[in-house]
């Protein structure tokens, strides 16, 4: 038994070590040898995996923070308070990874601050930059109490937290609005690429669709993160909250599916889904993973009320969401741009490094800060709900 645990730990350590070594090497190539050596980007594919995975998925999957804080602070859905901090932490770390990724993406990273002082309000990307920077500040503010309350100076702690509490609601409100803006602006980035983006994805409402799809995906990632924390760390959350999240994810996915379908019909693009093209294939993959399978699975109680099944269903949602964002940012462009782009290993390795750093930071935050309710007594089963009924595990 002990030997087995030991071997497991070493396996994870080995994986982490590999991720760090390859990622750091890739980072070295990116910054000291340039784009040609570190990417397969070209004039025909100026944006690739870093934007598709790093920025679009990174921001989209961090949508739970504003969703849950709106639910708890503004709508009074106190039920979700136990997972509030975890969702804010996920968003906070998500945005930090995006900021680090931004330095890889732009050709002149030492000019990262230019958008702050050089404004072009007609540019979607400018608005995205400003919103993301401001919202990261908001997240820092929302997350700060978790760190401040651990500081040793009592008087300082209390004053800061008192003022913090006074302006919290205003900041939360601003955060919700800012998030809504840039979650949709990320889709808005592609509005100007009309004629290049395949009709299965191009729509004058791309920004709205991006917004609608981000929230269920962000929730799904939160469910995954909390499940993993409960499984391997010393925390305990009433499982029925996660079950309810599952129900909510399903509902939001149905709403998104409805509008996506409506959009395809009104753009007369539905026919493209039945052509024998690679785009149609990617489209159906997205429909299956992001919509069909999760909506179907989440309608069953035996999926929603079982931690493991709920976890894997959430994982499918997250995977489907990533397929969607990569479809928009890469696959939908290839035909019109006359190119075939496959990311180089360095692009993937550096992205994975940044994500892994985020995951590790999450783990230690959960261990050392009060992110999720700590397990005080050892219960008979970990998956217990408040009513005292063990979930069917």
């Amino acid at each position, binding site marked *: 038994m002990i030997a087995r645990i030991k071997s497991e730990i070493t396996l994870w350590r080995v994986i982490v070590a590999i991720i760090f070594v390859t990622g750091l090497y890739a980072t070295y190539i990116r910054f000291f040898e340039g784009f040609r050596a570190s990417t397969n980007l070209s004039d025909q594919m100026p944006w690739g995996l870093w934007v598709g995975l790093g920025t679009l998925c990174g921001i989209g999957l961090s949508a739970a923070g504003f969703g849950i804080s709106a639910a708890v602070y503004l709508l*009074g859905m106190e039920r979700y308070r136990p997972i509030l901090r975890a969702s804010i932490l996920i968003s906070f770390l998500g945005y930090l990874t995006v900021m680090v990724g931004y330095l890889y993406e732009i050709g002149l990273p030492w000019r990262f601050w230019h958008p702050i002082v050089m404004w072009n309000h007609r540019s979607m990307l400018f608005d995205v930059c400003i919103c993301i920077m401001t919202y990261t500040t908001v997240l820092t503010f929302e997350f700060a109490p978790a760190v401040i309350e651990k500081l040793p100076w009592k008087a300082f702690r209390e004053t800061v937290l008192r003022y913090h509490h006074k302006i919290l609601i205003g900041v939360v*409100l601003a955060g919700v609005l800012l998030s809504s803006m840039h979650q949709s602006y990320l889709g808005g980035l592609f509005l*100007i690429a*009309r*004629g290049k983006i395949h009709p299965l994805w191009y729509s004058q409402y791309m920004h709205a669709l991006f917004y609608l799809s981000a929230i269920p995906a962000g929730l799904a990632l939160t469910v995954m993160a909390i499940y993993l924390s409960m499984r391997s760390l010393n925390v305990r959350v009433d499982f029925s909250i996660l079950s309810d999240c599952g129900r909510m994810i399903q509902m939001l996915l149905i709403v998104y599916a409805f509008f996506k379908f409506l959009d395809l019909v009104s753009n007369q693009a539905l026919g493209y889904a039945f052509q024998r093209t690679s785009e149609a294939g990617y489209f159906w993959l997205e429909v299956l993973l992001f919509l069909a399978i999760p909506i179907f699975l989440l309608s069953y109680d035996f999926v929603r009320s079982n931690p493991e099944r709920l976890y894997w269903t959430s994982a499918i949602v997250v995977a489907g969401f990533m397929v969607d964002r990569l479809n928009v940012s890469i696959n939908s462009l290839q035909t019109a741009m006359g190119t075939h782009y496959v990311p180089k290993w360095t692009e993937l390795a550096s992205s994975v490094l940044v994500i892994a750093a985020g995951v590790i930071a999450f783990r230690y935050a959960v261990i050392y800060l009060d992110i999720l309710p700590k397990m005080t007594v050892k219960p008979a089963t970990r998956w217990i709900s408040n009513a005292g009924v063990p979930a069917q595990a």
Partner: protein
Amino acid sequence: MTKQKAMLIDIKRCIGCLSCETACKQLHGFGTDPEPTLSDTAFTVVETRGGTFVRKVCMHCNDPACASACPVGAIGKTAMGPVVYNADKCIGCRYCMLACPYQVPRYQWTKLAPFVKKCDMCADRIEAGKSTACAEACPVEATIFGDRDSLIAEAWSRIRGDSSYVPRIYGLEELGGGSVLFVSDVPFEKLGFKPAPTGNQPMPTLTASALGDSPKVVIMGGTILSALYWVTQRRHEVALAEAEEKATINRSKGKRS
């Protein structure tokens, strides 16, 4: 007011001698080897499409997609017509490349401090009253430089005087028009000129409508959220007050009995 300048490219007259391409390369010190497509060392190329020579070059749009897309405003249209790039502002995000409907901007992928590269219509030369290097080099006046108005008149007179021309000036109105105009004896669709994605509307209108909605959405969203918050708070207070009332009643009952 300065008169807007332009270039007129006559596909029928072009003999494919590559003089424009070479002149451009020499001006920028890029060597003289011809390249198959635009690149960071080829701001214009002469492509062959079914036996016809087609010059490719930045269209110097009147309302350029690239300029509207650039987050730091590194690209702009000057009063004289050229769409110019300010390397001091650029952060290298390459959004201009994604935005340009003609796929013109190129990137220095091999450099450690890479910049965007594209034709600037010899902005410095024409500021000094000269013509563009390519127009100057063309031996058959297939590319000519001048005031946009008079070039449009010239284009129409060429079309009217020779029935083999397609009765259309490409670049006059497409996507809001620009400072580079084409006339041709072969239909433009057959020469790789894709149908304009937004017809005669400039590309930036695509983003403008989405951005234009956002103040409304923000104000509405903000109001709704504040209202919801107020309702939540109110409910909370009411619940508290009710509980207190109950408690007082119970207490007084307790006193009486």
